[in-house]
């Protein structure tokens, strides 16, 4: 189970990295006659192209003539040999854009944000938690009270509030940086709290005294000798934060506080699918939901495979 989850995760990352090669079409190319087109029937060596027959009812018919598929051609993994008949593996969205292409490109933004935010959260949380655990005293007290307070709050509201008070319309690069910053800001106390506990108990051990006697400074002791004790905890936290951040991006973009809809991310794609009437007729627009589900499932499999529940609580009942 654990291996399956790991493979799935690696696969998702590969897909995101290799997006330009995997996607048959550019993510923002609009095929005007293919609005809400269903997925094209695919037969490995060829595919049946679709033709719009009623724009109002969004009805398509399958053309008789099959279009050959080109494997590994023109810098793409798979693409259509006929420029006039696009290969739409997962259909098209409300602008006639290739959903498959947007999905794999969207993985770059969604995974990129969550990986970067997780990394920053880990580093900041470990640093502050480590210092508090090592120094003890007033620093420790302030940090612990603060993180207790943050832990009580439902984080999505904090994220929402922080994002909503910023200017709503920003260029995509700034949105990316802003979201990473907000996510890290909201979640570092969780990490810091756990690391603090581990370091505080670890520093009572004899090897720390030995290190001090050997002339190691506090920074060296903390970074080289004490931090490895928190490795397991940090790893677990990372696997929990990753899907949480993906979801946070999706939620924000869904409610219109994330990326502008022109940028493909899983969140903006979902918000495109939010029209109730259309989703009933065009279920392929829910493809990003499947992608998010797969990431969360993969992470749950990895964590569960370690014989522990994906959600853990320590005795005080705080989420650890």
């Amino acid at each position, binding site marked *: 189970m654990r291996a399956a989850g790991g493979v799935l995760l690696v696969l998702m990352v590969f897909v995101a990295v290799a997006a330009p090669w995997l996607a048959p079409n550019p993510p923002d190319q609009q095929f005007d006659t293919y609005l809400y087109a269903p997925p094209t029937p695919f037969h490995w060596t060829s595919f049946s192209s679709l033709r719009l027959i009623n724009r109002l009812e969004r009805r398509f018919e399958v053309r008789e003539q099959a279009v050959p598929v080109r494997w590994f051609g023109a810098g793409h993994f798979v693409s259509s040999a006929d420029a006039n008949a696009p290969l739409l593996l997962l259909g098209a969205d409300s602008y006639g854009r290739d959903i498959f292409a947007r999905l794999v490109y969207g993985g770059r933004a969604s995974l990129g944000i969550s990986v970067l935010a997780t990394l920053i959260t880990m580093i900041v949380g470990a640093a502050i938690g480590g210092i508090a655990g090592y120094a003890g005293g007033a620093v420790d007290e302030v940090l612990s009270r603060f993180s207790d307070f943050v832990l009580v709050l439902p984080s*999505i*509201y904090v994220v929402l509030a922080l994002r909503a008070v910023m200017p709503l319309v920003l260029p995509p690069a700034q949105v990316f940086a802003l979201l990473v910053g907000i996510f890290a800001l909201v979640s570092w106390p969780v990490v810091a709290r756990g690391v603090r506990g581990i370091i505080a108990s670890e520093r009572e051990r004899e090897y720390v005294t030995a290190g001090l006697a050997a002339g190691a400074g506090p920074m060296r002791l903390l970074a080289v000798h004490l931090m490895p004790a928190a490795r397991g905890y940090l790893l677990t936290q990372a696997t929990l934060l990753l899907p949480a951040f993906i979801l946070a991006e999706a939620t924000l973009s869904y409610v219109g506080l994330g990326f502008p809809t022109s940028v493909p991310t899983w969140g903006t794609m979902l918000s495109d699918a939010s029209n109730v009437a259309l989703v009933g007729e065009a279920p392929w627009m829910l493809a990003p939901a499947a992608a998010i589900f797969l990431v969360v499932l993969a992470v749950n499999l990895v964590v569960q495979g370690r014989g522990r529940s994906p959600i853990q609580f320590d005795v005080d009942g705080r989420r650890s």
Partner: protein
Amino acid sequence: MIRFLLRRLAFALLLVIAVSSSALLLTRLAPGDLTTELGPRARAEDIARARERFDLNRSPVGQLGGWALRAARFDFGDSFLYDRPVSGLIRRAAGNTAVLAITALAVATFVGIPLGIITGSRRGGMAALIRGVSLLCLSIPPLLTSLLLVFLASRTGWLPAGGMTSVEAVDAGWSAWLLDVMRHLPLPALALALPLAATFERLQAQAMTETIHQPFVTAALARGVTWRQLLIDHAWRASLRSMCAVYGLAIGALLSGSFVVEYVTAWPGLGRLMYEALRARDVYLVAGCAAMGGVFLAIGSVVADLLLFAADPRVREATAE
């Protein structure tokens, strides 16, 4: 016990004050204010009047102080967006959220806990199946469950796909209104309950497995207690301690989840109101929503403490001393 409760209540009050004041300050210090809602062609005197009415001419700290003084007398100011007192708006929205959250919590409890007892104490196909389904549900967060259920509802027409009432039911009598709400409730409640039920199942199973490997269970078995009685009266009761802690956190999960579910299914609750208020920079409505959210959180943590009190005699003794 009394002192313990008082301490918790003091913490709760502190939480509400901290959350609402920081929400107010955050909204106030954000770029732009509620007058942008008036549009680019608003007259200068309208803008000035709105600024005056919502204390935007005062310093942020002065505004916060004035608001806090009035809030102490339960006057939470007016909403710019709705042009009405905040308290009435919040009461309605909070009620709707409470209905949704309590229903979801009840469903999750009555589904998740028994299933957790089964999977935690048994091996075999049945338990493996439940575990698999639970893991699957755990991987579908409320955003996805609500989207999926809305999709199913719009496809099949079994349930209304969104909202809390239909247009036709507005003028009907209260019984028709209630029936209408009951028809709208299952979809958002289920969207919220599914991931929570899976969480409860997993945690109960974990707690159960840990408990039945303890010596007192073997001892009871040796005394001739039947397996069924052992599971419920002995093992489950002992596992309740860790579950109580989970309930205290469930309220936070319910609030977070309910924002998403309310947004997707157009349920007129607190999360949706907070979102609207934030976007419009409607200062007093934001502060009011945050205060109400804080109250919910406080209620959740106090209830969890009381549950723990009821479930674990050791805690009772520890706080009595």
